[in-house]
């Protein structure tokens, strides 16, 4: 376990942004450059730590449901209530750790946050507040991916709401107030359901305290994955009971709103359109993944019976997301809205892949989470670049930009082709894995979902055509090409997209043993439920 100054490396990567926030708040209001660089330095260190984690990560360890399988574990008792008579003992731990499921997300979060800081360089209004909130948001996201105590997980999950509300609400577009409150209400609606499921889990699960030999209720996620820990007679005990299905659905809705899965998606286009570029990048790049990560980390291993039972409905939701997102994207004339709906479509692939409940599907899903994070971040940055120059996002107002902005066009072509799944770019690999997995599990849904790929290709290419080909309108004659700062953000992402497109092994190696374990748990325990019925 790596440590620095007595604190574990995961603590560092999670709370560095909070330290950054404190520094930003101490700086003078008018010291704008210092504020920007503080944020950049702190998120930069975060990227370095992420790289260290990547290099030190043991590919052979599986994680998921065994304590020993987690890496960089930090476990400290946080709240430990020893009570008498009727009240059970309560134990909340500061419990961090990562496995193959979360390591990619940690890297993604660090990377996207760093890029988001540079994407925010042009912000002028209340700069101090902006960067403070951005860093807090960063800490919240990172915390979600590294925490293994459900209480801690929930706290991090909720901590992000407020910064996001303000970042959209203060620095957003014309309808920002509406978009911000809509985001806030939707996510809270989801998370209170999640909270109820968490409490129900907490009541049902107890472990023996090694020190005293007493039964202790715990928020430990890993303990919740072991069917033996469920107390007899408790709410969620057994397999395939109504309460278990209800808890699964409650959790699922909480996560589905974040993903967002149709029909809970309506907050997303509003939030994306109104949010400033950097926030859109974070929203699409990291926040959406928290939903799918939650399903993989929590719903599947804790409720394998329900996961198996709801496999087909889940797959159908994935299909709807893919096709619906693509169809609506096609109808958009607002560049940013188009990308927003394409996100819904691409997250559908993740859902479809994980619903397959086999190795290929889940590998594809997790890889797609990472790839979509990088690709969508590029797409939103690209929109930001053109919006900063033209102050419009109307697709039909552009044309013939190929010659006017050649370097911009090159980056954009890479991003678009990656998004539509061109072989040789990362999007292709993950979509292919997802579809192969899905095809094995539920042939017809997988086949129907491929319509989405065609539709995606159609609207992506059509968009390229509308922006780049044709004649350049008179008013855009003076548009400058992409500048150094913007390239600095886009090029690393493009490199990752190309490398993972050609040679995805570095990413797949990280997760393969975790994915195998997850698939085994779900299928073994889920099968028991089916036999039980």
């Amino acid at each position: 376990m790596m440590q620095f100054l007595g604190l574990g490396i995961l603590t560092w990567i999670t709370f560095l942004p909070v330290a950054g926030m404190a520094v930003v708040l101490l700086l003078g209001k008018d010291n704008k450059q210092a504020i920007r660089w503080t944020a950049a330095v702190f998120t930069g260190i975060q990227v370095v730590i992420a790289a260290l984690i990547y290099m030190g990560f043991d590919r052979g360890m599986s994680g998921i449901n065994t304590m020993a399988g987690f890496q960089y574990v930090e476990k400290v008792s946080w709240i430990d209530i020893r009570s008498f008579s009727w009240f059970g003992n309560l134990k909340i731990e500061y419990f961090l750790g990562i496995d193959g499921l979360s390591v990619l997300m940690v890297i993604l979060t660090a990377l996207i946050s760093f890029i988001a800081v540079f994407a925010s360089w042009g912000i002028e209004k209340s700069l101090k507040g902006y960067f403070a909130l951005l860093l807090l948001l960063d800490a919240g996201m990172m915390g979600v991916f590294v925490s293994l105590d459900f209480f801690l997980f929930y706290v991090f999950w909720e901590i992000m709401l407020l910064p996001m509300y303000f970042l959209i609400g203060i620095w957003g577009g014309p309808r920002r107030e509406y978009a911000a409150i809509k985001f806030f209400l939707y996510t809270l609606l989801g998370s209170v359901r999640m909270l109820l499921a968490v409490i129900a889990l907490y009541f049902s699960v107890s472990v023996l305290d090694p020190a005293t030999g007493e039964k202790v209720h715990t928020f430990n996620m890993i303990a919740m994955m072991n069917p033996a820990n469920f107390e007899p007679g408790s709410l969620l005990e057994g397999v395939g009971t109504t309460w278990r299905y209800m808890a699964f659905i409650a959790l699922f809705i909480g996560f589905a709103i974040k993903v967002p899965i149709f029909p809970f998606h309506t907050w997303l286009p509003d939030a994306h359109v109104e949010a400033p570029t950097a926030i859109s990048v974070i929203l699409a790049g990291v926040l959406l993944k928290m939903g799918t990560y939650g399903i993989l980390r929590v719903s599947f291993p804790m409720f394998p019976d329900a996961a198996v039972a709801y496999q087909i409905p889940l797959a159908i939701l994935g299909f709807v997301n893919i096709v619906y997102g693509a169809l609506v994207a096609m109808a958009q004339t607002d560049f940013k809205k188009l990308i927003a709906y394409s996100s819904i479509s691409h997250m559908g692939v993740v859902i479809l892949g994980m619903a397959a409940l086999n190795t290929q599907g889940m590998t594809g899903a997790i890889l797609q989470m990472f790839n979509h994070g990088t690709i969508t971040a590029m797409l939103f940055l690209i929109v930001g670049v053109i919006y900063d120059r033209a102050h419009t996002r109307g697709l039909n107002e552009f044309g013939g930009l190929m010659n006017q902005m050649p370097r911009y066009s090159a980056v954009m072509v890479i991003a678009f082709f990656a998004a539509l799944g061109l072989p040789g770019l990362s999007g292709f690999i993950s979509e292919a894995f997802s579809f192969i997995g899905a095809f094995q599990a539920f042939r017809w849904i997988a086949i129907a979902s491929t319509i989405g790929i065609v539709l995606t290709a159609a609207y992506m290419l059509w968009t390229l055509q509308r922006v780049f080909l044709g004649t350049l309108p008179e008013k855009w004659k003076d548009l400058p090409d992409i500048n150094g700062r913007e390239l600095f953000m886009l090029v690393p992402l493009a490199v990752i997209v190309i490398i993972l497109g050609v040679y995805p092994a570095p990413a797949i190696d990280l997760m393969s043993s975790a994915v195998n374990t997850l698939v085994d748990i779900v299928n073994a325990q889920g099968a028991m439920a089916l036999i039980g019925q």
Partner: protein
Amino acid sequence: MLPHILESAKLFYPELALTIAFCFVILAGLVTRNRIFTGLAGMAGVLAALYFVSVQAPVDGTAFSDMLAVDGFSRFFKIVILAATFIVQLFSLQSAELKSRAMGTAEYNALLTALALGMCLMAGASNMLMMYLALELTSITSYLLAGYTREAEDSAEAALKYVIYGAVASGMMLYGISIVYGLTGALDIYSVNQALGSGQVNLWTLILAGILITVGFGYKISAVPFHFWTPDVYEGAPVTITALLSVASKAAGFAMMIRFFRVTFADLIMGGQETGAWAMLGGFEWNEVLAVLAVLSMTLGNLVALWQNNLKRLLAYSSIAHAGYMLLGVVTMSPEGVSAVMIYFVVYLFMNLGAFYVVMLVADKTGSEEMSAYAGLGQRSPFIGVAMTIFLLSLTGIPPTAGFVGKLYIFSALIGAKMIGLVVIGALNSVVSLYYYVRILKNMFLKDAAPGGAVFGLSVPEVAMLLLLLVPTLLLGLYFGPLVEYAQASVSIFGIPR
């Protein structure tokens, strides 16, 4: 008899301290008009009471021939009540509203201590006569304090409404008490319980009596449908008093209600020895009545709050909704539920008083309690803006604030009792509440200040006061172990087997 009375008096030190302070402040008011002096004298009384409560031996017993129970439960609520009173007394020293009053504030400070006395008696009363007297003491004092500063027409109307509603509610309660007396021939709740448990008591008569008594409780905790006075009185009364009514008076009402239902109607012998859950005498499920009140209070309070533009009115409806959440804890009729209510009150004490303090500061500086006065507050006074944000998030119940812990325990108690329908309603209600709390945030941060909305600074005492409320609101959200342990250890109600 005399030895018993002397023995009882030892358990009565907190209340005695308050009584002495009350008399002293009245007399001091005849000599001096110094606002600060009488204020400090009142505070000394409350602090002394707080001290006496905290040094009481952790033994359960009763005083004055079973009139007053002195147990963990009442001690806990007395601490909440006295702490709230003390904080409000601190507010009162700063309040511009009170400073502007020419007549001096000796009566005001005296009545505050009398109110604290009444509420402490409510927390401990274990005899229905005592309950009624304590309720009346609290009510009459509240009427006077609510109408203390303003001479405006609408606040006169509010005060009148308060008096009339209060009179009707306490009258109905008294009627219910008399029926119970007629049925059992006893006034102290232990004997009543015994009589109910042993004899053949007409169930319908008992239900009628119980409902009438519940009206009195419902009025005190402002639960729907006994809430009509709340918005008007909260709006018309001085902010300090509104804050106190919303926390302490509600706590006293809850303490009395829980003790009444727990001791009077619960079957002390049958069932619940292992889980501690209560079984009801006569098979009538009182918790269903309370569940209806809870759901109505939460839903109506939250929905009506959506349309409010006056902050005090908004917080009035929000306090109705919070009464609903806390009632949910009582509905479980289990120690978990009761301890959840107790935890909620500690949390609510800080966050709600905090929100009211901000309302007071803004009203003192801008002269307005309307939503529009908050436009751009985030820029005009960042510290107030951030503090208010944290208080409001806490009221919504978002981690890592203390409000989350309160809701967590209420919801836990419900899920532990397998009352899933109620917990879902409660959870959805907290989403609704987010909307109106965020409306304030929106005004503070998303809107620009109106022209003329000057930047205002804070004096050192004001910052200290805000921090005093802010720090616990955050700290209890992150480290709530001691609070929970203390609350769970304090659930002991005298006369109830553990």
